[in-house]
C-alpha cells in the first residue's frame, strides 16, 4: 500500500484513540474499560508503525513490540485484580470501588 499517506494512518489512529478515551470515561464495567485501554494502546502502536515506515527508522517498530508485551502484562494483572474484586464484592462497578479515596 505505497499510496496510503501518513495523514490517513494518523487519522485512523486518532479515531481509535478517541473511541478508547470515550469508552474509558463512559463505561463502568472494568472489563470494558480494559478493552478501551487496549484500543488506546493500539492507536499508539498504529502511529508508531506508521512513523517507522515513513521515516525508515525501526525504533518505532521496536516500540510496538514493547508496547504489545507491556499491554499483555497489564491486561493480565488488571484482569487478576478484577477477578479478586469480584470474588470479594460480587460486583465490579468501578464507581462502587472507591475505598482508596483520601
Amino acid at each position, binding site marked *: 500500500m505505497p499510496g496510503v499517506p501518513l495523514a490517513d494512518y494518523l487519522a485512523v489512529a486518532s479515531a481509535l484513540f478517541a473511541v478508547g*478515551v470515550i469508552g*474509558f*470515561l463512559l463505561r*463502568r464495567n472494568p472489563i470494558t*474499560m480494559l478493552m478501551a485501554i487496549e484500543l488506546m494502546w493500539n492507536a499508539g502502536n498504529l502511529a508508531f508503525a506508521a512513523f517507522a515506515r515513513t521515516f525508515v527508522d525501526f525504533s518505532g517498530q521496536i516500540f510496538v513490540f514493547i508496547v504489545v508485551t507491556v499491554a499483555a502484562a497489564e491486561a493480565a494483572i488488571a484482569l487478576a485484580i478484577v477477578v479478586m474484586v469480584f470474588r470479594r464484592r460480587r460486583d465490579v462497578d*468501578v*464507581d462502587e*470501588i*472507591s*475505598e*482508596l*479515596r*483520601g
Partner: protein
Amino acid sequence: MEGFVATVPFTILFLPFFGMVLIALAGPYVPRLGAAIVGNLSVLGSFVLTAVLASYVWSLPPDQQVLTLKYPPAWATHPAYWAHIPPLTISFELRIDPLALMWMLIITGVGFLIHLYSIGYMQESKWYRTFFAYMNLFVFAMLMLVMAGNFLWLLVGWAGVGLASYLLIGFDADRMAAVLAARKALIMNVIGDVGIMVAIFLMYAHFGSLSYKVVFANVTSAGTSALDWIGIWLLVGAVAKSAQLPLHTWLPDAMEGPTPVSALIHAATMVTAGVYLIARAHPIYDHAPAAAMTVAVIGCASAFVAATIGMAQYDIKRVLAYSTMSQIGYMILAVGVGAYAAGTFHFVTHAFFKALLFMAAGIIIHNLGGEQDIRKMGGLAKRMPFAFLTFLIGTLAISGFFPFAGFFSKDAILDELQLLGHPWLWAFGSITALLTAYYMFRLVFMTFFTGAYRGDHEPHADRSPTMEVPVAILAVLATIGGWLVLPGHDEMSRLLQGAFGDRGILPTMGEINWFVTGVTTFSAAAGLVIAWWLYERAPQLRRRLATMFAPVQRVLANAYYIDTIYHWLFEVPTLTAASDIAKYVDPEGVGGVIAGVARTTTGLGDAMRGWETGYLRRYGLGMVVGMVLVLAYYIFVVHGGAAVGMR
C-alpha cells in the same frame, strides 16, 4: 642552689594541694582529727618553706630578687606549654619576687593559724573533713594566684580562690541563705574574672604575650590609652575580688560562711587579691595615669562608703565585713596613687588585725551558740576576758592607735597621699579613719559593755587551746606588726625594693610627718570618744539623734539600697527575660515557626486530599484533560498554532 630554687616554690605551691587530695581520698576512713592534722601540717610545711625561700631571696641583691621559673625547665627536650597555638604561646611559669613572697608569707602563716583555730571551731560541723579539704584548696589556689608568672596562671588562681570562697561561703549547704550568698559571691567574682580576661586579651593584642616579664618589659611600646584600658579592665577584676564599689555587695553576704572562712578568705587574704593585682601590674599603672587615678578614687570612695555603712550595722560579722571593705579601700587607694609599699604594708598589718578581730568574734559567736546580733550581747567583757582583750587589741590596731600595727600602715598611706599631692583623697582618708574608730568602738561597747548581758540564753565559756593560741599569736602580731616601719628605719621598703625598684618606695616611709600623724591620731581618738559618749555616757542623746536622723540611719542600715537597686536593675530583667524565653519564646516563638511550617504542610495535604475521590473514571477524566491541556500548550503556545494553520 639551682635545684633548691627549682623545687622549693613548687613544693610550697603543691603541699596544700596534696593535703587536699589526701583528705579527699582518705574520706571517712581516717578519724576526723586526721584530716585536720593533714590540713594543718601541709599549710605549716608551706609556711616553713616559704620562710626559708624568703630568707634566701632577701639575701640576694635587690636587682636579682626576681626568680622566674618555667616548667618544664629549659633543658627539657620536649618543651611543654599550657597552650600552644602559634603565635600564641602560654607557658607554665612561676615568678617569685618580694611582692609575691610578702603575700605567700601571710597566706601560709595566717592561713596556718586559722587552720589551727578551725580544729576547735569546726568541732560540731557535720562536714569536718570537707572543711579542711576546701581550706587547703583555698590556700593552694591563693598561692597559685600570687606565685603565677603570667596573667593566665594568675587568672587560674584568681578563679580558684573564687571557687574555694564559693564552696566555703555555702559550706552550711542546707541553709538557703548560705547557698544564695555563695551564688552571689561566685557570680560577682566571675564578672571580675571576665574583666581580667578582657585585660588579658588587650595585653595579648599589644604585647603578644601574657608573661609578666614580656609585658612589663615592653609596657612603653603600647600607647597611654591602651594601657589605661588594660588598667581599667584589671581594675574590674580587682574591684570584684576585693569587694570595692560597685561590686562589693557579695562580701557582707559572704559572712554566711563559717567564721574561720571569713577570717582567712574574706578578711586576711583573698579579698586583698585586688591590691596584689594592681601592685603586680604596677608597671602598667605607672604609665596609665587615668586608670591609676580611677583606682585611687574607687579605693577612697569604697573606704568612705563602707565606713558609713559600718556605723549602722548590728551583725558583728557584717560590721567587720564592711570594715574589711573599708580597709581594703585604703590599700587600693594607696596602690592607685603609686604608694605600692604603703599599700602592701597595710595589707600585712590588716591581715594580722582583721584575722584577729574575726577570730575573737568567732570565739564570742561560738560561746553564744551562734548569736551574731550585737543588740543581744553586752557586758561580755567580764564573761569572756580573753575574747575581750584580743578584740580590743584588734580594734585599737584597726583604728590606728599608737603603737599598734594599724597606726603605722594607715599613717604611711595618709602620709603618701599628702606627699603625692592628693589633698582631697587625704581628707576623705582621714575622715574615714575617724569613722573607723567610731564604728569599731561602737562594736566594742555594744558587745562588751553597755550594761548587762542582753541575750536570751546564758553564754557558755569553754576555752580550747587550739582556738586561743592562734588568736594570742595574732594579738601579738597586731601589736608589733607595724614596727617593720619605724621612724628612720623602714624595713618594709627595703624588703619590697626588689619588687618595685625605686617607684613605690617613697621617701616618707619611715619619716614622721607630724601634721598627718597628728590628724590621724586625733581622728582615731575622736572616733573613740564619740562612741564612748554615745554608748556609755549619754545613751539618751544617742536615741534622740537616732530619731532625728532616722532616714539617714535607714539608708545606712540598708547599705544605700545598692542591693535593691541591683536586684531591680540586673537580676529581675535577666531572670524575667530568661524565664520568658524558656517558657514562651522558645517553645512557642522559635519552635512555633517550625510548628507553623509543619501545620502549613499538613494543611496543604488536607486540602489536596479532597481531590482523591477514589472514583477511577474521574481520574481518567483528569488524565484526559491534562493531556488535552499539554497538547494545546504545544500547539497554540509553542508552535503558535502553525500546526492547525492558524499562522
